């Protein structure tokens, strides 16, 4: 399989020489095309920092990150912008929809700077919203629809540019359990039908159980990895076990 994400010796530290805080420490992993990977770890493990580096918002202190063969740590800002727009998609915990735009306008917002024809845009919107079952609320405003629908709108916006990788940062964090499982099912479907690689940060084992593979990091280092080989329920149990091992960042586990 083609390696879509290749992270080598990734380190990130903040602060000055005397007061250095190391967030990520020599992290190595790869993600293959079409995978649905979860990243888990206790608070302060460096999940969000990792996500920000992968999504080109932060620069690493050391190491290389290759997405689809291109090293994003070596790119100039203008190329990065294009790269982000064309190759990557993002979903956030609090959706980040623009309230004054309709659902449809929110979805096509990233395409407004592309050179796609209007027909092509329409077609993509229709196809995606059908999969995500939001095709009947295209003319509504974000505040008029449910949170689940809002997150699906955000997903549609992330997917409209047909990204190679979809980054999701705690996508179910603001959803109730019913909307969360619905949303994850849709995400699963997108992963299957569109062959989009998905990288999802979460601390919720149930959410993580939808992935094919879950990476665990702790204190900025790779801790372990579990791969889903059987039913989702079994996988869920495994994730829970691993979470217990890792300790959830509680006081008892602190160094």
């Amino acid at each position, binding site marked *: 399989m083609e390696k879509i994400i290749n992270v080598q010796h990734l380190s990130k530290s903040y602060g000055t020489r005397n007061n250095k805080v190391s967030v990520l420490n020599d992290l190595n992993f790869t993600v293959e095309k079409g995978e649905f990977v979860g990243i888990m770890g206790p608070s302060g493990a460096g999940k969000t920092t990792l996500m920000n580096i992968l999504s080109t918002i932060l620069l690493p202190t050391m190491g290389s990150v290759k997405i689809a063969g291109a090293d994003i740590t070596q790119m100039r800002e203008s190329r990065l912008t294009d790269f982000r727009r064309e190759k*990557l998609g993002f979903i956030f915990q609090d959706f980040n929809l623009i309230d004054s735009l*309709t659902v449809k306008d929110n979805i096509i917002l990233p395409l407004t700077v592309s050179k796609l024809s209007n027909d092509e845009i329409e077609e993509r919107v229709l196809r995606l919203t059908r999969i995500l079952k939001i095709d009947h609320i295209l003319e509504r405003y974000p505040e008029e629809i449910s949170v689940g629908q809002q997150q699906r709108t955000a997903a549609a916006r992330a997917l409209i540019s047909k990204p190679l990788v979809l980054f999701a940062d705690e996508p179910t964090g603001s959803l109730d359990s019913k909307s969360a499982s619905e949303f994850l099912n849709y995400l699963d479907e997108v992963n299957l039908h569109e062959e989009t690689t998905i990288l999802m940060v979460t601390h919720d084992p149930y959410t993580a159980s939808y992935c094919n593979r879950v990476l665990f990091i702790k204190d900025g280092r790779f801790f372990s990895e579990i791969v889903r080989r059987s039913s989702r329920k079994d996988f869920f149990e495994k994730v829970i076990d691993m979470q217990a091992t890792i300790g959830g960042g509680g006081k008892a586990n602190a160094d």
Partner: protein
Amino acid sequence: MLIRIIWRGFKKQLSNYLIFFFSLIFAVMVYYSFTAMTYEQPLIRSAGKNTQLVGMLGFGSFAVVLILLFFMANTNRFFIENRRKDISIFHLYGLNYYQICLWFILEIFFIGIFSFVTGIGLGVLLSKLFSMILVKAMDLPLQVHFFFSTDAIVATGLVVLFILAVVSFQILWLVSGYKFSHLKKLHLRKIQAMKVSLWKKILGAIGALLLLSGWGMAVAYIVFARKVSNHFGLIEGNILLMGIIFLLCVIGSYLFFAYTLRWYNSYRPKRLNKNLGMLSRSEWQLRLFSEWRFFGSITVALGLALAILGGMAALVSLQMRSVNEIAPASLMITRESYEKLAPKLTSIPYQRQSLHFKAVPAKQSVEISGEGVNSQPEIMDMVSLSDYQAFQKTNPTLKDIHLKSANSTVVLSSYQRYLNDYTHYSKIIYLKERNLTVQETHPNFFGDTNMRYGTGMIVVSDALFNETPGLVYTVEVVDVKHQNEEKLNRLIRKELKGDWDFPIHYELAWKNQQIIGDITEGEGPKKEGSTIYRSEYTSHQEVYRMSRSSMGLVLFVVTFVTTTFIVATASMVTLRQLSEFKQKRKKYALLRQMGIPDKTIYQEIKRENRVVFFFPAILALIHSMLALSVISHIAKNADYWFVYLFCGLMLVVYALFYWVSCVYQKKLL
């Protein structure tokens, strides 16, 4: 403790309120300078009694206070609206209503005192400049010295305190009206803002209609004015019509921003799919929804300010022009006084010319729209063509005249300036023995009408002048070189008293198509008929100085008030743009994360600023231009370059503030 926290919060916000300070300081500075000038004795003395220097400056300061009040109240309201979240946090902390109010009041007091101190400082430094400009504008022979007035500082301080007190009451009122449920309401507002229902569309259409009809009436003002005047009378009709146009434009402007523009914005063509077009559309829509009142007020007030300025400028240019009309030569003097003055004039080289007038009974019907026809016989002054042509040599403003026949005449009218479009002179002038046909009507540049008897003046052929019986009198025209004017005027002040003398008496009537009655010298019996005197002399320098100083004063005051106003409104808009921007930053961060290039984002920022700054400005410009066209019907031949200058200035100031907003936002990004 509370005060310390407030002080800290204030220090933090200081940089954000720069624009706010800027305009406050500017207003305080202008106010101080105006007030200081009213205490500046040398200036007042040299301006003389004839010009209402203190009154006019007082009016200017009053206008500045009004602008300041408007500005402070508006900005304060905006700040509090924007800090609803703060208020709920304060509530959460357990601060009570008065403590919250105290917080805001102290903050506004810090702002007020800071700008007061800076404004006074700048005012003291710049008041000399202000005085110099005024002296230049009034053309006073005066050296300006540095002037410092404690009275003016106290007065300015009191005004600032007064404004702060008013704003404090506003805070008490605004915070008391605040409830937690507002947050919820605020949430749903966005959807309300985006949706344009049928009745809103109807109101939008009405708004556009009102604006267009107001503008249409202004363009075709004279047609409407004649009709309305015939119905209601000249003055009433015009005031009514202007009032209607004004109302149409005011209501139209508000409706335009509240509904018409929003209706237009709700239309979403495919081209908006490119370059974030739909985003700027929706942002503009949101702004319109929450701030249509503000945009409407700014538009109306700016338009009004420019229109008032236009009216003033028209008045000034007419007044200055009338200087040449009243005093076309250095000195015009009765022959009798000239003979007394002549021996003393030998030291000054001068040119002299005699103008012979003949006061004759005559009748010319004048129809004024709405005021009916005036066809009573009156006294007219006759002048012969040869005298006219001789005078023309030294007075080039007089137009060439060629009389076509023996009975032709040219009327010189001093009513050519105002209400020209409303008056209609008949083509026939009845004299006692004959009728004259009016060939043309020209403006009257024959000098002060007070030096003559007649209300009208006609130019006739020499033969006709000699044949017609009437009362002959002579006015001497004395012209000296510019450098000798001062000397001449000193002599005039010493020798002449400026008395009214040489009365004539007349009693005229129109019977059986004939003028009946006579003109006699002397006062005559008091009971019947009328007696007219004429004045002794008119000096060009005196007339010029008087007009120049009063008009210079008017222009000076109006200029600074208008500038203050333009700056205040522009900074209000800027303030809104900048403080809104902090909330919008998240949106731009999102756009960046989506991979929208910075260039596109900057374009978007510029677009959002552009509509906010220039829509009201351009609408106000259209309003004021049309108001000027209305004024120009009443005061013909006035110069409006001054107003156009100010329209340009407004655009420049707005462009400057627009640029500052864009740069600042780009920096914040």
